[in-house]
């Protein structure tokens, strides 16, 4: 594949072939390749991994608010016994969509936001390997998320729970179109995840800066890489399952119809073979994130880098061998239960290693509790609670009591909210200046942190007790007389405290921006936290081309080692200031041009989806748009000649006299072109 080759300077791997004088071409499609660099059009057609990352983050925040409002509805309904705020039918839709939204439309894309923005930066690349594919990944995700949520307005949202056990999803038992939206919506977001996974894997494998061996990569990038491998292998499984479900519902596929001889356990296995790696897809990016934050604010390197990396890889592998712990009560045989019970216990070992290594990083460190650090340490503490409750239900006989009670709900909220989400919020505070050029308010951040911690422990802590008292999950109401009243009320109060904390975060974003603007947008120095990894070598906010000059890497924590040497005791000695080491950001290397086609590609998918549900002709029309998009995409030249006669500056791979490392400058674009070459071939 052309993308694996780093082109020699001065040559572009365009279809014309290396060395041939390149002549500008016009798009063969209906659109000229757009060239805008600002305004909404730049966002809509942009392929810059940073724009894609920001859009992923913004969309995830939007869905986070949607999913949070769903959570509040649940909590108000359950605040008191015999709740009558919403009907059982609506409740089932709300809790299903809360789960689906938070897993597929919040935590996954929030991870994708960070991975898109920072993995290329951390490995010293100018973009991802396939920039247009990256844009398509985001727009496809957004299209899938909006499609899924449009079901609210079209006769009812999915109502079968986020794991949608068959045969309850059969049209007989779930007669609205909700589960059709679930199947097709998640198929669409699955396409987004798969595109992203392939892209980031190729990026990390091929586009690392010179000298950046795998074992010099930052741990965030490592965990991102493991996550992308998990996605690449897990998505096909859920895709198969969803495809069968879609066929069952729309075309009488009979895959899960018991009366036709199906065994509903098939769905359970398919779902959880995906579903368990999925939970590591949710948590590993956050693990990586705090592995960046904790060392920076401890002024120490991450304790036991190899253990951290290998434990992450081990989690990635072992994550495939534990899925049936979701099914201890499902009737699988005792040997299966024993095997999955033991494997589940032992996946706690690499996770424990991570906890201990983070603690060892704190140990002896000079800790600075910025908001980012607070959230990172919050993750270590809260995830520990979730991890330990996880061990208690790895013990399969105990799980026969705990399964499907609120104890499980407590567990996965401690690992997903207390784990993944706290990590991501920490990431927002940590990387905000990198992305937007100014910091978030630390004092509001402190309030945000404490309200989040208090709110989450009030909301999810009592769920442990309720579960042990026998409150099943997914019940739209409960009676007096079970002792559930008090803790449910406490949880509802806690949920509103979380809501306030989220509001505070949004206020922080606005207030911080305004006060920065009022000060005349002062330039935030390149390295506000005295950080360790390459992304901080670029100015804030990151310029479009990332690096003026691709750094040559000699150390793990390269940026730090350019600033500090060590004395004989092993203490850091400053040898250069951040300003001296950081780049100025004023180079103008060639970058991949924007494109309309990812947008067209992505929004053809929900058209097909609506067509499958309502009218097959619409699906065919959507298919035609999709096909057009694929061809338009494939036949599009890497750079649009535009109105410039004779090629335009974009074709010059060595525009402004940068050094030998320039080879990397155009790799993103080249790879994109290379991909076209492959596609064309």
């Amino acid at each position, binding site marked *: 594949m052309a993308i694996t080759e780093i082109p020699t300077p001065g040559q572009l791997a365009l279809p014309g072939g290396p060395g041939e004088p390149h002549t500008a071409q016009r798009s063969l499609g209906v659109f000229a390749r757009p060239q805008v660099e600002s305004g909404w059009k730049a966002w809509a057609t942009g392929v810059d991994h940073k724009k894609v990352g920001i859009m992923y983050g913004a969309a995830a925040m939007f869905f986070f608010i949607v999913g949070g409002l769903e959570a509040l509805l649940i909590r108000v309904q359950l605040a008191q016994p015999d709740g009558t705020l919403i009907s059982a039918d609506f409740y089932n839709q709300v809790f299903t969509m809360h789960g689906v939204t938070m897993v597929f439309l919040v935590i996954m894309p929030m991870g994708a936001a960070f991975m898109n923005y920072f993995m290329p930066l951390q490995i010293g690349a100018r973009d991802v390997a396939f920039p247009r594919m990256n844009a398509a990944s985001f727009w496809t995700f957004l299209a899938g998320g909006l499609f899924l949520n449009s079901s609210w307005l079209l006769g009812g949202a999915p109502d079968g729970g986020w794991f949608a056990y068959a045969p309850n999803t059969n049209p007989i038992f779930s007669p609205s179109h909700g589960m059709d939206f679930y199947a097709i919506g998640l198929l669409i977001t699955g396409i987004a995840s798969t595109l992203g996974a392939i892209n980031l894997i190729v990026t990390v494998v091929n586009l690392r800066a010179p000298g950046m061996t795998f074992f010099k990569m930052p741990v965030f990038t490592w965990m991102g890489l493991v996550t992308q491998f998990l996605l690449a292998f897990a998505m096909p499984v859920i895709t198969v399952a969803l495809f069968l479900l879609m066929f069952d519902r729309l075309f009488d596929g009979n895959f899960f119809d018991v009366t036709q001889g199906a065994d509903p356990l098939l769905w359970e296995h398919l779902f959880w073979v995906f579903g368990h790696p999925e939970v590591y897809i949710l948590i590993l990016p956050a693990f990586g994130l705090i592995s960046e934050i904790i060392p920076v604010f401890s002024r120490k390197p991450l304790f*036991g880098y190899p253990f951290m990396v290998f434990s992450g890889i081990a989690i990635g592998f072992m994550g495939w061998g534990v899925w049936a712990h979701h099914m201890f*009560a499902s009737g699988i045989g*005792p040997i299966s239960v024993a095997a999955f019970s033991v494997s589940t216990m032992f996946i706690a070992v690499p996770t424990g290693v991570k906890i201990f290594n983070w*603690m060892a990083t704190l140990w002896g460190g000079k*800790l600075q509790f910025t908001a980012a650090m607070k959230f990172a340490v919050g993750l270590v503490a809260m995830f520990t*609670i979730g991890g330990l409750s996880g061990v208690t239900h790895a013990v399969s006989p105990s799980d026969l009591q705990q399964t499907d009670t609120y104890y499980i709900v407590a567990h996965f909220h401690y690992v997903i909210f207390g784990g993944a989400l706290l990590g991501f919020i920490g990431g927002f505070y940590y990387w905000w200046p990198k992305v937007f050029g100014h910091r978030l308010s630390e004092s509001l951040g402190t309030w945000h942190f404490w309200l989040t911690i208090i709110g989450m422990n009030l909301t999810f802590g009592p769920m442990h007790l309720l579960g042990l008292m026998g409150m099943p999950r997914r019940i739209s109401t409960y009676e007096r007389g079970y002792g559930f009243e008090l803790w449910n009320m406490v949880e509802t109060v806690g949920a509103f405290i979380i809501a306030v904390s989220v509001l505070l975060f949004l206020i922080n974003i606005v207030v911080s921006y305004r006060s920065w603007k009022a000060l005349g947008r002062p330039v935030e120095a390149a390295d506000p936290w005295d950080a360790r990894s390459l992304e901080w070598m670029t100015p804030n906010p990151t310029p479009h081309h990332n690096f003026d000059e691709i750094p040559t890497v000699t150390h793990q924590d390269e940026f730090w080692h350019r600033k500090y040497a060590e004395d004989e005791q092993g203490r850091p000695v400053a040898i250069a200031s951040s300003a001296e080491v950081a780049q100025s950001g004023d180079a103008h290397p060639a970058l991949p041009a924007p494109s309309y086609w990812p947008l067209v590609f992505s929004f053809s998918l929900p058209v097909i989806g609506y067509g499958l549900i309502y009218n097959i002709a619409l699906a065919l029309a959507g298919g035609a748009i999709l096909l057009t998009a694929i061809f338009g995409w494939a036949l599009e030249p890497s750079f649009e000649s535009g109105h410039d006669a004779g090629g335009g500056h974009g074709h010059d791979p060595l525009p402004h006299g940068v050094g030998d490392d320039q080879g990397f400058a155009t790799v993103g674009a080249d790879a994109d072109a290379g991909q076209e070459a492959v596609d064309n071939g």
Partner: protein
Amino acid sequence: MTSTSPHLVTRALRRLPIAAGPALLLLSACADERQDIFTPQGDSAEKINRLQVPVFGIAGLVGVLVLGGILVLMRQGSRRHNDAEIDPVQLEGNFKLEIGWTIAPAVLLAVVAVFTVATLLDLDDVDAAPPPELGEMEISVYGHQWWWSYEYEMNPSDTSPENTPEIVTANDLVIPAGVPIRLNIRSRDVIHSFWIPSLAGTRDAVPGRSHDLVIQADEPGVYDGQCKEFCGLSHANMKQRVVALSMPEFQTWLEQQQETQPLLEEGDVGYEGQQTFLAQCSTCHQINGLENADGEPIVVEGGAAVVSRYAPNLTHLMTRGVFAGALFDLWTTDEDGRPVVDRAQLEAWIRDPAAIKPMYDVVPEGELPRGMPDLGLSEDQIDQVIDYLLTLHPGATEGPPIQTAGAQD
């Protein structure tokens, strides 16, 4: 079940079933933790409890140590920051230490794993010999949207199609106390989960499959539970109870339940209700012994009228304690504290079932109802049907039938 002592239940049931209700109502007023997992009342739940208590203990201890450690490190570290002393030593790791905290948890977990697997295999030992008094009797538990039925077969080895279960009942699973009872957990529509926490762990009821579960109630009493696997609209309202009777009482119960319901004659109390029942209710509900206008016995078998194709068999309804998926008590007490049928609750149920238990009351054109539909009976008809339902108990001449009235609260 904490304060509803099983002994009291037995005694009350044995001596004076009529007085049992009010006594138990009082007793259970403070028993609000009736579904918790730490009060085992039977062998299987006890085995689980013996494992889970130390596991919770270890997890809690590790949690306290780790969280405490984090707090200590935070305190020390931020003090160091405030002291503004020189930067810390750039420690990159310690192989021995890290191997240590890889192996130590692994060893701890290996110990837990040994006990886990041992308990697991012990629980799975489903070949427990059935008590000789019961012969070959086999009990199948069926999940339905949104209630449970229980089918007792006296001669399960007879596989001929004529051999149907002798007893088909609902909501209250009646078993003898003190002996292991093997249940076949099944479902007739979607996946449900059978769970009586004080007796045993959960077992999923999966359509098309039969799962074994051995339960034992050490003492006579009533044990609460609830469907755990999300099973659609009214999942929250799908409860179940186990009523454990002493062996002699259970044997009496078995005999009584196998009696058929005599057909009422014109002039009998409840006759009008019976006619309404035959015209309307018997499309879905069966009562053993009932005949239709042609003198044919009414046998509702997988009637095509409901999605799950089954509705509770109402034979000897008045020996049960709860109805509508164990959601409502059938019994209440009169001014003198004696248990009487809760007519108001029954009326409300027959008047508009979906109003008090979420079900699909409006059935789309061409689709089957899910749960009990609103039959549109007049108030008179409702009264008459209830008068008829009150006659649904085994032969009144042999003393009061064993009933589970009011035993819950």
